[in-house]
């Protein structure tokens, strides 16, 4: 039974999730995943599978989010919270370097040490794997790499989860980024709850994943269960009412800088920047200095930034993007047009977070058809 390979499918019982967790702990990983804190769904350190939001579901719509109890005991019966996994690889606040004054009047610059345990990410959805792949292109594949991201991305264990239900905000199916996972994981789970059984169909995605599974009591998968898993994921795709058509991007946006829809959305947008902060692919940041009281030591920090502020485009003599609409336009045009030129991929994976956490429910799946001149469906 221990000769597992990539692509193999086996079955675990729900109770075996705890054993899987223990094995990862023994191997030196720190487990992180979805958990409920202060009534919200966050990603944090998990003390065990009991910390997962078992028996809860999420109801995410444009401008609203809530957790609600389920009728079953599913471990992964919700979709996405506000936070994405990018915070573990690309932290919101990071001390980058320290500066020390030398006695001879010189300076010494030193990169801050970035100590962290390798992570086991538990419960990563398809759109989030797609988002990590997008951030890889940004932080690893350009002329300059982010060494902190590279280091954190080098050693980890990913337990992905196929979505068997979709939230109202999801539109991954239209972008081909979900709801089923295809690559970039060590193990992928499909949670199946029948009258009698609570099971996980497990797909092995790497040799690291195979080695871990070999230590777990598992059964080979049977065809009926496989079929059931495929049907659930297909159903999750079919149930999505939102969609983003990308055929005419990026030209549509480059050719429409002066489209009246920008005035319309610009009048609604509060420029709060939530959409960029919750987006799993947004990568903009700024640098700030902190100094100690004697002024002998300085630290340079990297902080997430959003293109919705005036300061973002500040240059001496005046900001570039003064009007609120120009800042929203920058965000959306970057995500759906410039990103393709810059990184060969869309900056959107269809997770829906930007519309869920927008205080005024601005929805890019409605804005794009409006620019295209189509009627907004729904």
């Amino acid at each position, binding site marked *: 039974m221990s000769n597992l390979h990539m692509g193999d499918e086996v079955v675990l019982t729900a109770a075996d999730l705890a054993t899987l967790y223990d094995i990862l702990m023994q191997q030196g990983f720190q487990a992180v995943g979805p958990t409920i804190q202060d009534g919200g769904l966050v990603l944090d350190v998990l003390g065990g599978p009991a910390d997962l939001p078992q028996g809860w579901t999420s109801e995410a719509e444009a401008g609203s989010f809530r957790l609600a109890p389920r009728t079953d005991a599913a471990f992964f019966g919700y979709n996405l919270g506000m936070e994405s996994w990018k915070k573990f690889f690309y932290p919101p606040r990071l001390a980058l370097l320290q500066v020390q004054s030398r006695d001879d009047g010189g300076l010494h610059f030193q*990169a801050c040490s970035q100590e962290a345990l390798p992570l086991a990410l538990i419960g990563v959805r398809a759109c989030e794997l797609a988002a990590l792949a997008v951030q890889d292109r940004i932080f690893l594949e350009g002329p300059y790499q982010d060494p902190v991201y590279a280091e954190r991305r080098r050693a980890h264990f990913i337990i992905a989860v196929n979505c068997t239900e979709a939230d109202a905000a999801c539109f991954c199916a239209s972008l081909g980024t979900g709801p089923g996972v295809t690559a970039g994981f060590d193990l992928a789970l499909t949670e199946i709850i029948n009258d009698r059984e609570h099971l996980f169909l497990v797909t092995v995605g790497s040799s690291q994943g195979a080695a871990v599974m070999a230590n777990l009591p598992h059964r080979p998968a049977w065809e009926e269960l496989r079929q059931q898993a495929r049907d659930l994921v297909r159903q999750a795709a079919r149930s999505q009412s939102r969609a983003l058509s990308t055929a005419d991007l990026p030209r549509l946006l480059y050719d429409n800088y002066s489209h009246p829809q920008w005035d319309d959305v610009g009048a609604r947008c509060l420029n709060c920047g939530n959409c960029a902060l919750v987006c799993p692919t947004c990568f903009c940041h700024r*640098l700030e*200095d902190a100094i100690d009281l004697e002024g002998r030591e300085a630290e340079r920090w990297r902080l997430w930034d959003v293109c919705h502020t005036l300061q*973002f485009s500040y240059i001496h*003599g005046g900001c570039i993007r003064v009007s609120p609409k120009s800042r929203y336009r920058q965000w959306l045009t970057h995500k759906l047009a*410039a990103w393709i030129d*810059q990184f060969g991929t869309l900056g959107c994976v269809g997770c829906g977070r930007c519309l869920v956490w927008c205080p005024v429910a601005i929805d890019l799946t409605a804005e794009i058809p409006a620019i295209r001149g189509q009627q907004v469906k729904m």
Partner: protein
Amino acid sequence: MAPETTLASSGLSVCHHPMLPRPFRVVRHRRELRDTFTLILEPQDGPPEFPFLPGQFNMLYHPGAGEVPISISGDPGRPRHLVHTIRAVGNVTRLLQRYQAGDVLGVRGPFGAPWPVAEAVDRDVLIVVGGLGLAPLRPVIYHVLRHRQDYGNVEIIYGARSPRDLLFRRELEQWRGRFDLRVHVTVDSAGPEWRGGVGVVTNLIGRARFDPPQTTALVCGPGVMMRFSVQELRRLGVQPRDIYVSMERNMQCGIGLCGHCQLGPFFVCKDGPVFSFDRISPWFELREV
């Protein structure tokens, strides 16, 4: 993958951290104008060479305050001294103005796409600059003069606000004295003692000697000046792909990662700051992009 190799033990390779500045010592501070100065720098430790291409910039760091993008204004053929010419306008540049010989600051670079000195070989070279725009183009002038036989006519058109605002005046006089180079200078306004021209640079473009289809034009200065210069160059028949402009955006990283310097599909820090006009033209005239 062996998870036992924790990140703590792996240790980040310091020399590969693109955000880590190198300490440079001021060799000389030279006052240029009321608000403009030149710092001549050499590394605090390590080899003195700082090779760069004309048009590239560095991020200059005053610890505790921040980093600013500043073009290199020195001679690429003499990379032992790193030269920056800076106008004190705000927080960091005013602090840099106080640096004297012996003081140490941080330098990251060189970054950015250079002026097309290779593409311009065997062609006429027209340099159109306004104000401080002369600083990032001075390395081009040094390069072209060092390889003078590689280029056709070389014409420099330089405009400043007033005679008091003319940068690198001594060098301008020297260049003006050469037979293989023509320098046209104009100011917006001047007193009766000024013997040069008065008016905007665009008026002088038509007076320069160049063969438009065989000319590479390099334009750097305030936004309005660049727009009108490009218009005039195109009117005279210089091809859009042979006109180069330098763009400006807020820059936090200089290496294509912070997102601040975006202009349409471009990162000004790594795709620019120098762009050929045919590449940048869809965004050149747009506001708030």
